[in-house]
């Protein structure tokens, strides 16, 4: 791996952003590899590392480490770090694609140039991979979608996206683990809870897990939601 495949961007006086460049539609195995390399190097003054889709944010204590020194160390680590592809479990996630659960499905299908049924079929036949957990507790960024779904985010952010909504943007899918503002195209909704605050860890998916979507109708959505509320997870490990 050459140094040209990474650069260090300024990010204030207490963080640096290492940006990875290269081929492939999912750079997160390299991001996670760099995260491990930074942890392994035990550099002084590091406060926390935050993986992104193509970046690693390295927060540091500026009273303990000089940014120039840290930037140089990070470039060396980025050049030599190996890829970390976590071995994940296989999950099945029920999703209802009916209009009241996926208000943007029709428009998103038009944008992708296919009938809505074909978009649902495409989503359900794609082996999605948890690239990253981020933004909100337990929110998975799911990679593996074809280039036809490289859509910009919605121009305006919805103030309230219901918990469980399946969003599409930028060739990624995500599931909102809780009701929150959001700018992704909402094509469906799962009754599954992705976060269980009382368990350790509180987040049910991890990077490297694969997720297959299973289309369910509105009645099944309701029944699974009831079961989930009774403690029966709708997110199932595939046999």
């Amino acid at each position: 791996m050459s140094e040209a495949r990474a650069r260090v961007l300024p990010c204030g006086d207490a963080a640096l952003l290492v940006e990875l460049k290269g081929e492939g539609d999912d750079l997160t195995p390299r991001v996670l590899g760099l995260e491990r390399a930074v942890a392994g190097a035990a550099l002084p003054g590091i406060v926390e590392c935050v993986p992104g889709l193509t970046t690693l944010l390295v927060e540091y204590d500026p009273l303990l480490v000089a940014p120039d020194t840290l930037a140089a160390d990070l470039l060396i680590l980025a050049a030599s770090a190996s890829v970390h592809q976590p071995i994940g479990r296989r999950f099945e996630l029920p999703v209802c694609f009916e209009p009241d659960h996926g208000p943007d499905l029709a428009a998103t299908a038009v944008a992708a140039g296919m009938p809505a049924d074909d978009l649902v079929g495409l989503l359900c036949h794609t082996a999605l991979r948890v690239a990253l957990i981020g933004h909100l507790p337990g929110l998975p960024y799911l990679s593996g979608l074809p280039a036809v779904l490289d859509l910009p985010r919605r121009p305006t952010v919805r103030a309230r996206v219901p918990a469980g909504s399946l969003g599409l943007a930028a060739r990624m899918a995500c599931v909102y683990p809780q009701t929150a503002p959001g700018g992704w195209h909402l094509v469906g909704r799962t009754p599954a809870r992705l976060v269980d605050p009382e368990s350790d860890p509180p987040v049910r998916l991890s990077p490297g897990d694969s997720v297959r979507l299973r289309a369910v109708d509105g009645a099944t959505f309701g029944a699974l939601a009831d079961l989930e509320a009774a403690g029966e997870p709708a997110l199932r490990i595939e046999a």
Partner: protein
Amino acid sequence: MNALRVVDAGVRTLVVDTGRFGSARLGIPRSGAADGEALLLANALCGNPPGSAALEIAVRGPQLLVEAPVCRVALAGDAALRLERDRTRRELAPWRSHTLRRGDRLWVGATRHVLGAVLAIGGGVAVEPCLGSRSTSLRGGLPERLGRPLRAGDLLPLDAAAARRCNAPERALEVPVGIHVHPQGALRLLAGPQQTTLDPTGWDALTGAEWRVSASSDRTGLRLEGARLRLRGVADVPSQGCPAGAVQVSGDGAAIILGVDRGTTGGYCVAAVVASVDLPRLGRLRPGQRLQLELTDVTRALALLRRRAAELTTLVAACRPATLAPP
């Protein structure tokens, strides 16, 4: 159990410490005190270690009933503090400690800060920590008790050993000349990773505009009103980790300064980042307050941070035994 009983929760009272580190990989935000300096000074006044858990008060504070033999409290910030003891009420001063006894009621009044004043409690609020922190997170993922603001009826457990330290003299902050407890002036900005996404007129607007703090600001972010920033290119970036103070610009040119409850990653460009020295000030802003931003560089920002760290050391040392009469 020695505790403070929450009789009235106030508008949004949170347990805060220095924040939850190492959980961003689960999407769990940093959280913690919006004004880290207020947390530091309130704890110093209580004789606590610097990162002890305290209460952050927004808009209007709680009413607390002391269910312990003694309990020490200290407020950093602009909220009013009132004590009811033996059916008589009187005002208590901020910026000094007070020792309460069983049956006392403490009212924390209104604060004009967007995010809040800090009430420290002797020995710290001894709630069970989760993922290394006692800070409330309003964004999910934590056990119910740490996932919501205080409610009437909650009991805030007290550290059993703290009662013994209540024999020590009260402490008050006697501010040395030349050190500002609350620094003023423009907030200093540094370049962010997508600094070139703002076009030159966008930068002129960011550093030249008379900004106002939107009333819809919260711990997730401070919304700035006063200008729309021109971008060259798209505002979207692959979701990236965002530090506190990141100035995020969305596609419509609106600017938000990300706060302590920010999402761990975000997909809008980060044009600039508030200098570390000015981050505690974000917690002290008021809705509608005018605000100016100016660009600096890392060398100057670090010199300011070192100077402020030295001032804070002096302020903590100035939390001396009070000469005022005890309540």
